[in-house]
């Protein structure tokens, strides 16, 4: 009896997860919050990605060379001034090497 109950519970959990995953297609891939407008991200991460891109050009200018993106990300992750949303976005961007859309 206990084995059957356990198996039913596990099946229900997998069903619920499948439903959640389907629903998450419309969510921000970083934080699962609702996407904003046509963007791929929620408002906070849309703003974060925009900031990361804008500051990248400043970093290149500051060091007078084209900095490799991974090096740029690694530098940002190392700095304590970097915001938490930026850290989360970088982790996502590193996993999607093509960069933001």
């Amino acid at each position: 009896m206990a084995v059957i109950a356990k198996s039913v519970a596990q099946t229900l959990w997998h069903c619920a997860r499948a439903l959640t995953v389907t629903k998450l297609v419309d969510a921000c891939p970083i934080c699962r919050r609702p996407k904003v407008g046509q963007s791929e991200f929620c408002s906070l991460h849309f703003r974060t990605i925009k900031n990361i891109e804008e500051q990248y050009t400043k970093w290149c200018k500051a060091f007078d060379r084209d900095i490799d993106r991974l090096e740029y990300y690694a530098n940002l992750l190392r700095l304590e001034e970097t915001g938490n949303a930026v850290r989360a976005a970088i982790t996502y961007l590193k996993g999607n090497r093509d960069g933001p859309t």
Partner: protein
Amino acid sequence: MTEKPDAALHVAEALSENKAPAKILVEGVPFFEIRADTRRTLVCSALGHLYAVAAKESHGQSEYPVWNFVWKPKHLVQRGEDRQKKWIQAIAKVSQQADRFIDACDFDLEGSLIGYMVLKYACHGADQKAQRMKFSTLTKAELREAYANPLPHLNFPLVFAGMCRHEVDWLFGINLSRALTQSALKVSKRYATLSTGRVQGPTLRFVVERQHEIETFVPTPYWVLKVKLDVDGCIVAASYENDRIDKRTDAEEVVQTCAGKSGVINALDSTNYDLPPPTPFDLTSLQNEAFRHFRLSPRISLAIAERLYLDQLISYPRTSSQKLPPSIGYERIIRNLGRLDSYQADVTNLLGQGRLVPNEGKKSDPAHPAVYPTGTLPKRHLESRERKLYDLVVRRFLASFGLTAVKQTSKAAVKVGNHHFLLRGSLLIKKGWTGIYRPYAKFEDVVLPPLRVGQSVLIHEIKSEQRLTQPPPHYNPGSLLRKMEDAEIGTKATRAEIIETLYKRGYVTGQKINSTPLASRIIEILTKHCPKIVDVTFTRELEAKMEKIERGSETREDVVLQTVNYLKPIIESLKANEREIGQELTAILVEMREESTSLITPCPQCGSRLRIAKNPRTHKRFIGCTGKWRSGCSYSLPLPQLGTLTRLTKTCPACGFQLIQVRLRGRRPLVSCCRCYTKKALSQFPSLKASVRKVEVM
């Protein structure tokens, strides 16, 4: 009638001629009796607000929108206000024998409203014949003067402005908070208090926006040049003409060009600046200064200031005035303060300087002057925080009469090739008021050696240092209060309370204020569905209208009607989107609930997250593995069943498991490791081993 029992005692003591006033209890409520000739006077008090705004017809807590309201005794509206019931009954009973009524509540918006409501409802319409005492300190002389020459009637514009503020805030609060709470409840089926309000919404938005700025902040590098110049053997720190260089190569180029070179001073400049004395404290500046120097939250500093007021040590603190009228008796107060050792020297200097004229600020308040010490010396031992705040008020008061301080700043421009460097010095050449306000006004002197134009100097050391741009600072209670004041939202009396509400609701945490994910989501939802609610414009307009009511150029009814017309479409829109809002709120509430029960240590058996859970059948709490439903992991640990549990960030030195603190009332908090304890218990007590297994099977 006064606002609080302490004030009633002070008023009674001040008005009784020779002997102490007699304390009479009417249904357990204290009244103070004064007898003069054949006349009998009773001094009673309210307990703050005894009446509150409530829905006219109550259809339950979930009903919204609600537009019709009435004023009701507070004990009928809020739970836990039973004392108020007794108070109203006692005042009503005594008032039947009274032939004359005098309102001696604090002379401000809230005080006027408290007095009016009690006179109107508890004293059977005595508001129309009541007289009004106006005073700013609880000193004997001022209270007697106010009693001998009362205003002929209540200050009705102030009362109506107070009523309007409460009614408008109630309309906002009840409708918006119910909209949020009900939306979440209908989807999640679990109750959580979610509130927002006319001032609370925009204030929370300030915090959330700042938090987002910090979270999305990307630092960028820049360089500064650290330069030391040799001026006739004296090494002096200098700065480069540009405080900040954006390119590394540019900074390196300056270093290479200038290292070891000599330059010439080509310009010298010296200016004297007057530093006028500080203005006397209004409430906001007092709260800010108290936070800056003592880290006292605005609510705490207001509470302490009120205690000092009731002890007759300072004037009424809820004031927005920075002015001190001569009628308060500058010299008398200053001379009295001189009797305290710590101010004796400053008082002697101050009285020796001749005419006493305070440096008043721009802000004024028709009801009260700025906060000032009454000159009455403390009769009891002041506790540490009271002493600090009292010292701050006294020194600020004395300093406002001080002489202008003079600061000299010197600048020398040094040319090295095509580059310019600056030498900067500053010196306080006339101390003035800074001597009186010394612990709270700090100036550091930077003394330069004698310099002349054409003098040769050598670059002793030059190096470039990489820096990073910094995110904006978190708000703290003091800076948030200042922001609210700058945005002209809330009043001097309510701002501190609103910041406290943000903490109570779990929207913000810490002294460096961090907004929680729930706060971000609420602001996101309100911005999406009703952006006007979190916009300061309407709130600011309302504040202006309420000030107009105080001046008699606007009516309370009009402002309330305008508010209802403004709110109606907003609430309707929220109601129409109830489901969507509920889903969004539920998601974050579930996330926060999970977050608040999760442990940082993963399950040692399957690596899943561990959570503090409750057995739905026995209601006993335990630590369980979230992998139970996914992979069938049955790992669990027992927890103490009594007391409040707190998850600590520390881990057990023996096994690395997250430590838990248990708090039981009246006992010292106990920190324990649930994992080690279990192991130890299992080996030592076989009976417990069986019970642990039982939980695992569940």
